[in-house]
């Protein structure tokens, strides 16, 4: 048989195979967090008897998230080297942790850093040190490549997240008016990043973003979706549960001089990696702090295996945990935490689509989730076959406690269906592309700027709380972003240095 004959026979057979009924492909995966066990671990650890090895460190940082690591970063800058960072997980990073598989590195939660304004000195300082910012310009490889964002609306993808397809004249006018108002607010100069230094107490904080929209006469469903999306994306809450001041902050605090944001395959894990280059010798991983006792001359910090004696402590773990580990803990009951779940999907191939290219951030309009981010987007390759997508979902529609219950109650298979159906709205063949779905649940993912909270005396007191122990987690800010975590961490380092 001629070569051609063989070939056409083979292709015919391939075609017949295609005719076979599509078998549902096997998708592997697991829930990777053990948050449901964490409470038990904390309690069991406390009950363990006295077999702890005594250790000494003048300064102990609890929690190796961005706040804890940035505290360490500042300490090193000041020439202070006698400290340890105790991190409960096997890997530092907290909400900026990342994973890595045969295809790509990928984020578990935080995946980008907005290009910092000129006023954001602290972030720019770090960016300069990490080589991201050089002679006033951001290194383009670390900026999100084109195309940045797209939105699946009315059955097709459009560029950018601001809805454009199907808008009436009235909708467009509202978008324009909204943009105008945000510019006005921005011009007031009070929306800075981090927010505390620039902010002036504002009546806006006492109403919800939803009320503010209504008060200003914004009723375009597209605009409302857009604002709602912003609140869910940054705060994990609906506009009705978000302070209008924080809602405006989201839109008015950024200058966008360079097309950004800064991002990497592993998301903000990249920044963690860079910080760890200097801090790794100080980090003790797998060390969960179960008890803290503040005395007159020092602080004892107990983990499951060690008994640390120190002169001062920076508590950079989530603040709500304090009540479980110490007597006389400050009152953190005012902080509301949003529950989230994220998924990393490993794909054999990208879904088929005509006439549009995958963006970094891909959002579906009719979805309770936030869409997916493509980890391979920053690759310099011209051709991407396999990929990893990170899918984001804040459980914002229900009360946080209810959301946490749902997180624990639903098993992996339930989420698999939910996720594939969600992405399936825009990619019909997604089930043929995915080979693995791993999940990470965050019961207390991030502090939420609920109406009235940011400017409340309770929050201010919490932020200032301390003596031998100071607090540093980003949840003190009332909103959870990299810049706030860094600000809290650096601030805590400077305060504690006065004590030790």
């Amino acid at each position, binding site marked *: 048989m001629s070569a051609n004959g063989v070939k*056409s026979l083979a*292709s*015919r057979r391939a*075609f*017949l195979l295609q*005719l076979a009924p599509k078998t549902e492909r096997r998708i592997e995966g697991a829930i990777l967090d053990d948050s449901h066990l964490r409470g038990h671990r904390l309690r069991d650890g406390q009950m363990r008897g006295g077999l702890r090895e005594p250790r000494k460190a003048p300064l102990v940082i609890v929690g190796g998230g961005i706040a804890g690591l940035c505290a360490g970063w500042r300490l090193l800058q000041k020439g202070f080297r006698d400290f340890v960072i105790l991190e409960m997980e096997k890997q530092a990073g907290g909400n900026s942790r990342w994973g890595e598989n045969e295809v790509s590195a990928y984020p578990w939660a935080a995946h980008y850093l907005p290009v910092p304004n000129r006023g954001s000195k602290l972030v720019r300082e770090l960016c300069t040190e990490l080589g991201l910012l050089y002679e006033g310009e951001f290194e*383009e*490889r670390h*900026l*999100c*490549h*084109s*195309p*940045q964002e797209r939105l699946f609306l009315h059955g097709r993808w459009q560029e950018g997240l601001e809805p454009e397809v199907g808008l009436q004249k009235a909708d467009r006018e509202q978008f324009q008016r909204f943009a105008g108002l945000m510019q006005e607010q921005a011009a007031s100069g009070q929306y800075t990043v981090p927010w505390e230094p620039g902010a002036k107490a504002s009546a806006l904080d006492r109403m919800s973003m939803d009320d503010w929209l209504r008060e200003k006469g914004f009723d375009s469903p597209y605009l409302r979706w857009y604002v709602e999306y912003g609140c869910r994306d940054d705060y994990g809450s609906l506009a009705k549960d978000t302070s209008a001041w924080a809602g405006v902050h989201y839109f008015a605090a950024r200058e966008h001089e*360079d*097309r*950004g944001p800064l991002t990497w395959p592993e998301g903000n894990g990249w920044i963690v990696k860079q910080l760890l280059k200097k801090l790794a010798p100080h980090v003790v991983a797998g060390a969960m702090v179960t008890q803290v006792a503040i005395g007159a001359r020092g602080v004892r910090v107990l983990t499951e295996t060690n008994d640390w004696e120190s002169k001062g402590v920076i508590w950079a773990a989530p603040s709500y945990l304090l009540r479980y580990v110490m007597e006389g803990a400050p009152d953190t009951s005012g902080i509301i935490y949003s529950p989230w779940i994220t998924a990393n999907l490993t794909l054999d191939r990208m879904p088929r689509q005509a006439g549009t*290219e995958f963006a970094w951030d891909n959002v579906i309009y009719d979805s309770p989730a936030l869409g997916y981010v493509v980890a391979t987007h920053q*690759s*310099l*390759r*011209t*051709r*991407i076959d396999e990929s990893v997508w990170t899918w984001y979902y804040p459980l914002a529609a229900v009360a946080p406690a209810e959301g946490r219950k749902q997180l624990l109650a639903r098993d992996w298979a339930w989420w698999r269906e939910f996720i594939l159906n969600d992405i399936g709205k825009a990619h019909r063949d997604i089930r043929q592309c995915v080979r693995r779905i791993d999940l990470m649940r965050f019961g207390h993912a991030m502090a939420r700027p609920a109406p009235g909270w940011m400017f409340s005396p309770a929050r201010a007191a919490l932020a200032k709380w301390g003596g031998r122990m100071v607090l540093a987690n980003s949840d003190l800010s009332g909103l959870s972003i990299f810049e706030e975590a860094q600000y809290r961490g650096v601030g805590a380092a400077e305060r504690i240095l006065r004590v030790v």
Partner: protein
Amino acid sequence: MAVLLLISVFLIAACGLVYELLAGTLASYLLGDSVLQFSTVIGSYLFAMGIGSFLSKYVGRGLVTRFILIELMVGLVGGLSSTILFLAFAYTEGFRFLLYALVILIGTLVGLEIPLMMRILQDRFEFRDLVAQVLTFDYLGALGASLIFPLWLVPQLGLVRGALFFGLVNAAVALWTTHLFRDRVGALTRLRVLCFAVMGVLGIGMLYANTVLDLADSALYADEVILARNTRYQRIVLTKWKDDLRLFLNSHLQFSSRDEHRYHEALVHPGLAAVAGARRALVLGGGDGLAVREMLKYPGLESITLVDLDAGMTELFATHPLLRGINKGSLTAPKVKVINADAFVWLEGHDGVYDFIVIDFPDPTNFSLGKLYTTAFYRLLKHHLSEGGLAVAQSTSPLFARQSFWCVAETMKAAGLQVFPYHAYVPSFGEWGFIMASKHGYEPPASLPSGLRFLTVSMVPDLFRFPADMGPVEAQPNRLNDQILVRYYEREWREIAR
């Protein structure tokens, strides 16, 4: 039963319109000039339906049997119409004749359907109800077809399978009619066997639709296709007409053997001949080996490294006798090393420095390819360029895509390179542009290798002069995070296509 028959009316009307639309679409697709094709196809089709209606008066007894036979014929001819037309275009000169013959044949058969159906139904309705009902369903079917055609049939099934599918619908109506009138028609079994036979033929057609399309691929190229191959990255098609070989990558013309020497001489010699003592050279893209062929005219060069993404492409050009004839076996020359890798990633992972670098990538038609035209890429390139070395990049047409061309120049400048844009005329492409880049100036060469067919020493400086309509225009540099070039390019070529 009347209702069931009216549903049949709906279905056959839909089928009828689908065949008409298919013929019109195919004709405009293959022959161009859609206004002419659609007008003439629709005109002859409607006229043929008139013939059918007229002929219906000669159909006397055995109405139902005749109706079933006609259904089967419509199904068979209509169902196979796309296949026949595709193959006719590929293998015969008679496409136009067959097109209209088929349109007339199908039109006539379809013209018979409705009058016969009316007569079958005439005992069941008042005359004025009859006309109203039948025509209502007839037009409804047409509406259905006109919606299904663009929204589902063409995108999901394609033209060949789409026609076959509706052929099957006709045959199904025939089969169903045998059932409805099981006690009024004779030779029931024979009719049914016939129905199944037609369905069988159409079904087999569905299975082999891909093969038909492969066979017909050649139809999409003006000349004889002598080689077509799918690699992992692209579809490579080589066509031949007399002594002109043309290479298409994903249907984009890559070169024509008649004038590729102009392109490749212009790409290589103004630069390479101007680098004194060049020893190491690099080619990025250019898997056809034609730039390398030109570079092999410099005995002083010690090594040429070619980095091309597509192993299928470089292998083909290293082994196929016809293609080796064009590139003079350049890819297997001892000095030449072929590497299959993504250029940006490869450059990033290596630290070789080269005296001459050729960049011959596809045009920046999308953001993925656009990465290869960014400041980030050219900065990396600069690290690989020796102090006295030159790099040259094909940079689309300064005439058709003027701002795109100058954008590439601007981007190289922003990456810290000095640029020297030039252009040459390549008939099968039109005016084409290149950008020479260096760290320290550029002087045109004092001599060129012998045996060039296009370039002469004295004309090289002229290449760097731009007529007024191709001269510099304002453009932003193209950056990874803001790929303005892809937008310029898309806009400019869209304007040309209009």
